[in-house]
């Protein structure tokens, strides 16, 4: 643990990782309860296309990935509404096309190199100071907006019709949630990479939902599990020379397993 006090790269990784993990966990609770868990997976693949496009055009890949992810997320929403597609079908379509486009663009850009692998597998330990502040700022904005609309998100997730009658602007909040998810997925890429970012969105939230006896507890527990996963994941990755992204995700899965077992034991009693 002394390493966290001594090494700047670990401090940067921890700072960015914690803020991004909390944003992922907060959104993850709502996405799971809306049966939208797979959207993180789909948007991650789309973000791969955005990153590849950025590398191809030699423009900031993260910025392009953000724009592509947000636009696609809104497109998935419209497709569900207007074309009468099931949500998972729309996600599967865009996910596949995103991955395919990314592969083509990466080949054209001749960028199967360290840069691309960093986005695929995450390189939180190589995060630069400017990236830290950008990530923290975006994560704070995401968390702030979710907290501001927390009760309305909860109401429309629980009972959409009643929420609508009560004056909740469910259409606008759907768009907001979609955009926040896209932003958070792109942020999460930096921590655990495109291939594992959906795990960071889903697993801590799923773990928190095992034991929470009310919604507030679900939010707090999920965030805590996400923070613990990042903190100890980074520590273990540094100590044993393991990839940070995989270690963080495996640790969060172990915590999910533990909470699941505790829930089962409580039920049996």
């Amino acid at each position, binding site marked *: 643990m002394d390493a966290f006090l001594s090494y700047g790269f670990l401090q940067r990784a921890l700072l960015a990782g914690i803020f991004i993990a909390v944003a992922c966990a907060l959104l993850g609770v709502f996405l799971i*309860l809306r049966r939208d868990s797979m959207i993180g997976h789909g948007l991650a693949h789309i973000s791969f296309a955005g990153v590849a496009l950025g590398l191809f055009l030699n423009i900031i890949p993260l910025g392009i990935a953000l724009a592509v992810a947000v636009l696609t997320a809104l497109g998935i929403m419209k497709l569900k509404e207007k074309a009468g597609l099931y949500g998972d079908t729309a996600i599967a379509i865009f996910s596949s096309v995103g991955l395919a486009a990314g592969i083509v663009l990466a080949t054209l850009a001749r960028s199967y190199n360290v840069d691309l692998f960093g986005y695929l597998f995450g390189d939180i330990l190589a995060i630069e100071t400017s990236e830290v502040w950008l990530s923290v700022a975006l994560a704070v904005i995401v968390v702030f907006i979710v907290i501001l609309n927390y*009760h309305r998100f909860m*109401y429309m997730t*629980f009972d959409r019709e*009643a929420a609508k009658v009560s004056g909740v602007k469910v259409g606008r909040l759907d768009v907001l949630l979609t955009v926040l998810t896209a932003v958070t997925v792109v942020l999460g890429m930096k921590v655990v990479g495109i291939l594992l970012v959906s795990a960071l969105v889903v697993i801590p939230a799923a773990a928190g939902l095992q034991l929470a006896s009310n919604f507030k507890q679900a939010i707090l527990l999920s965030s805590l599990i996400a923070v613990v996963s990042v903190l100890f994941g980074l520590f273990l990755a540094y100590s044993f020379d393991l990839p940070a992204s995989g270690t963080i995700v495996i640790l969060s899965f172990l915590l999910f397993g533990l909470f699941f077992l505790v829930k089962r034991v409580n039920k049996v009693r």
Partner: protein
Amino acid sequence: MDSSAADLKPLIDVRNISFNYGPIPVLKEVTFSINLGDFLAIIGPNGSGKTTLVKIILGLLKPSRGEVRILGQPVDEFFDWNRIGYVPQKATHVDPLFPASIKEVVAMEFHAVSSHAMRKQDKELSVARALKQVGMESFTSRRIGSLSGGQQQRVFIARAIVNKPHILFLDEPTTGVDTETQEHFYDMLDSLNKKEGITIVMITHDIGIVNKHVSQVACLNQRLVYHGAHEDFCRSKAFKEMLAGGHHLVSHRH
């Protein structure tokens, strides 16, 4: 609300409403009013447009023709939704994994619009009062998914009345609830109507309830085939036609 003014004007004015799902007509030229203090049952066979009509009144669906006015305002322009309480048809199909406590479910109604500036203490008192009115005051910390269907329905009614609405809409509120619980449930609605002065509009298949509790009946079969006092309904042509048609109506003795 100025009660003397409200006595003169209908709370809800439904004018010439027609609605189609694609090419299929569901409602044809339905016109009626709901007045302060009514306990109105909307009945009719399956597919007669009852739920569609309620959704149109609440602004959840747009009619093909006609208009609805709530407290004199077109429903599109109405914004005072805390005067309206609503318990939807699928209220009993609660996700058992949803981690909301009873208290959180009832309090959802307060947070629907940000203009609801109430002190936290006042909100908690209102939630406690609403739960007491429905007999669920000792379940505050329980998860909604851990309750029975009848208990959940009471919680949803508590949520719908926590803002002291002037009018409460319920869509088949006793589906899946046992008979004894239904009786308690309708006694509670009776009390809300007669003692609290809440106007109630309820979709139901239960003729027994129509006979015992309601003051007004609206019978739908795409068109409005009857609207008036419940005492006259059972003698009406509309009632006889419904029974002759073999439509599903529940009847039980009191």
